[in-house]
């Protein structure tokens, strides 16, 4: 009896310790500086957007030929990174990958913040944003743009639900630890989850809902990025005229999403001291997945460039020459080498899959992926089939103005700010699931 009592006491103590470790914490000095920097970028971005609203899209570097600049590159980047929610949460959950539990919420919040800013940046790209509703009122169902609008809003709601359902048991824990939160947050926890009592019936309903969500979010996630790729591929232009674009975009999205999760894993592990929960084993396993995704994306890249290079039709030749040896070559080779080849080489070795090298590889993948999206959008627009004659010099090239940079950087900062605030308010690792897994391990032991 004494042993049993001691065991129960130990379990209770372990649980309490886990809860203490996983509860959200107040920002320290570094957290405050980080938040202030992000907020400052957002304010500058908002001012730049005010200027764009006031003067029109003429403040950007976009003209008649390059009508999609870094806003659309940024949009494709956000859509790509949002795919990670379905990868980590849905696919791993359906495949019973137990080790992914500490990573699921990180993936979900990255997905939600990315999809929010994907929607915002597309409105920013509109010359007349007050006409946004016309998309719904006068939208043509034949247009991939309308498909994108439908699928993005659907994915947004599904991601919110996938974030919310697994959060319910944690909300109860958060509400119980009133002393650890302020009045505002406590009110929020109660508003969102006071009805969660943890009964068997509630768990059954929640589990079923999560399973349905995991199943349905995968095709929707595939759709969101396939449809985004079709915005380009349904247009007959050098660099976009491909039947492979859907798969090419999805493989790239999985890679950048996984890279983003690796970076977030490292940062949260360091800042919140979560070494017990996000272990080198997680980095090792994620590293292997990232290698696979790098090779997959590299394969699609070779496919995308080799086939047109083999045929070398005149407009394709100009486009490919610009990418491989022309003015876009430095960015192109940076995206390929830094964004794909170097991470693959690094992560092939066990030492390369330790937390710090993984973090560096993750940064390389994410930065490389952003420039890769720029390369997908802009060089093609600068190589139309008909020669560019009798046009102002500014139409012949494209470089973003400070307003575009400020808005693009502001949107990236905004996405990071959403993740930062979420991590301040909610636990970044699912507390209830982690405790449950620990109990299962103990019982097995």
């Amino acid at each position, binding site marked *: 009896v004494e042993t049993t009592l001691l065991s129960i006491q130990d379990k209770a103590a372990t649980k309490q310790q886990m809860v203490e470790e996983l509860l959200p914490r107040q920002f320290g000095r570094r957290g405050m500086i980080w938040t202030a920097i992000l907020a400052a970028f957002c304010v500058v971005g908002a001012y730049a957007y005010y200027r764009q609203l006031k003067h029109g899209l003429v403040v950007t570097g976009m003209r008649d030929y390059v009508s999609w600049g870094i806003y659309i590159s940024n949009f494709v980047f956000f859509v790509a990174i949002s795919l990670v929610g379905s990868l980590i949460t849905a696919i791993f959950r359906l495949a019973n990958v137990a080790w992914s539990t500490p990573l699921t919420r990180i993936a979900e919040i990255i997905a939600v913040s990315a999809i929010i800013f994907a929607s915002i940046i597309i409105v920013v790209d509109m010359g007349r944003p007050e006409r946004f509703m016309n998309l719904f009122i006068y939208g*043509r169902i034949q247009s991939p743009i309308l498909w994108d609008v439908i699928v993005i809003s659907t994915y947004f709601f599904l991601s919110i639900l996938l974030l919310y359902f697994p959060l319910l048991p944690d909300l109860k824990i958060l509400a119980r630890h009133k002393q650890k939160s302020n009045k505002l947050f406590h009110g929020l926890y109660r508003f969102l989850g006071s009805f969660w009592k943890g009964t068997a019936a509630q768990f059954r309903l929640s589990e079923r809902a999560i399973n349905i969500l995991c199943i349905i979010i995968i095709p929707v996630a595939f759709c969101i990025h396939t449809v985004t790729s079709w915005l380009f591929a349904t247009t007959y232009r050098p660099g976009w005229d491909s039947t492979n674009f859907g798969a090419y975009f999805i493989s790239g999205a999985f890679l950048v999403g996984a890279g983003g999760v690796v970076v977030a894993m490292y940062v949260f592990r360091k800042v919140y001291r979560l070494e017990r929960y996000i272990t080198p084993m997680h980095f090792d396993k994620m590293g292997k997945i990232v290698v696979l995704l790098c090779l997959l994306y590299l394969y699609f890249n070779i496919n995308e460039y080799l086939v047109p290079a083999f045929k070398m039709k005149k407009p394709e030749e100009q486009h490919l020459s610009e990418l491989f040896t022309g003015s876009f070559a430095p960015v192109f080779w940076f995206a390929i080498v830094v964004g794909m080849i170097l991470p693959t080489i690094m992560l092939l070795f066990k030492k390369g899959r330790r937390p710090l090298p993984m973090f560096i590889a993750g940064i390389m993948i994410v930065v490389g992926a952003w420039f890769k999206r720029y390369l997908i959008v802009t060089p093609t627009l600068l190589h139309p089939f008909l020669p560019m004659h009798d046009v102002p010099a500014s139409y012949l090239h494209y470089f973003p103005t400070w307003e575009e940079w400020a808005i693009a950087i502001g949107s990236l900062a905004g996405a990071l700010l959403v993740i930062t605030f979420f991590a301040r308010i909610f636990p970044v690792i699912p507390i209830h699931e982690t405790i449950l897994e620990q109990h299962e391990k103990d019982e097995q032991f």
Partner: protein
Amino acid sequence: MKQYWSNMKKMNSFKLLFAGGIFLAAAVPVLAQDAEPKELLSAIAYHVPANGVPYLLVTTTSKLEKRLLPVPRVNFNVFMDADSIIISKGITDAEGKAIVYLPGFIRQAWDASASHTFILHTEAMKGFDETQSELAITKAKLLLDTVAGAEARTLRVRVLKLEGNEWLPAGDVELKLGVKRFGGELLAGEEETLTTDSTGYATAEFARAQLPGDQAGDIILVARIEDNEQFGNLVTEHKLAWGVAPRPSQAGNERSLWATRDKAPVWLIAAAIFIVVIVWGTIVFLVMQLIQIRRLGT
């Protein structure tokens, strides 16, 4: 060493003087040539457009840098018949051209004779002397019609010239026959040019079957005499229902992927509705589950 530099300086001064002398000797005639006025080439051409007022085209050019370049802003006067009637005082444009329409006040003098001479006089200007050129023309008519009863569609052009008070056939006149198309003229027959016979006629078979016409299927045929020494430039037009009326494309009115929003293909609408209903139905179901969870807890 000092001696050496002194000798060098003397030598250089001598060379400099020698080179300067050579340059001046070469440059003086060149400069003198530049100062001489260049030759202005002035020309006048007579045009009778289809259904329009006859006009004279004045051009002022000069051979500059081995090319014939326009000389703009040249003041000129145009007279008719030995300086007796001044038709126009004008100035050429940036292209060295000016159009002078035959004014109404010369009608009496114009009708009095079958032939007239136009005299162009350009005033002297910086770099150019005054010039004078003449153009003698005989009044002519260009008639275009179809040949009735011919096996194939045949066109007939007739050129008549005025002699005394009589319109007589003009033979051996070269002309072109075309169809108006896309702002230019498409050859109507097989041959590039036609020449009138002694009766003043020239015929050609119409070789452009199924040519798109206007809404009624009409096409405009054009007969044209260009730069004829005796008659100048004459144009006449004739509208014929020998074209094909265009049938507007029905592509936008049928259900297709490229049609307007209300003409989307049924299969696409059905597929879209099916997918949206399935996915959003699931979302609604999940929200219902959430409501049920809420109900269980309260």
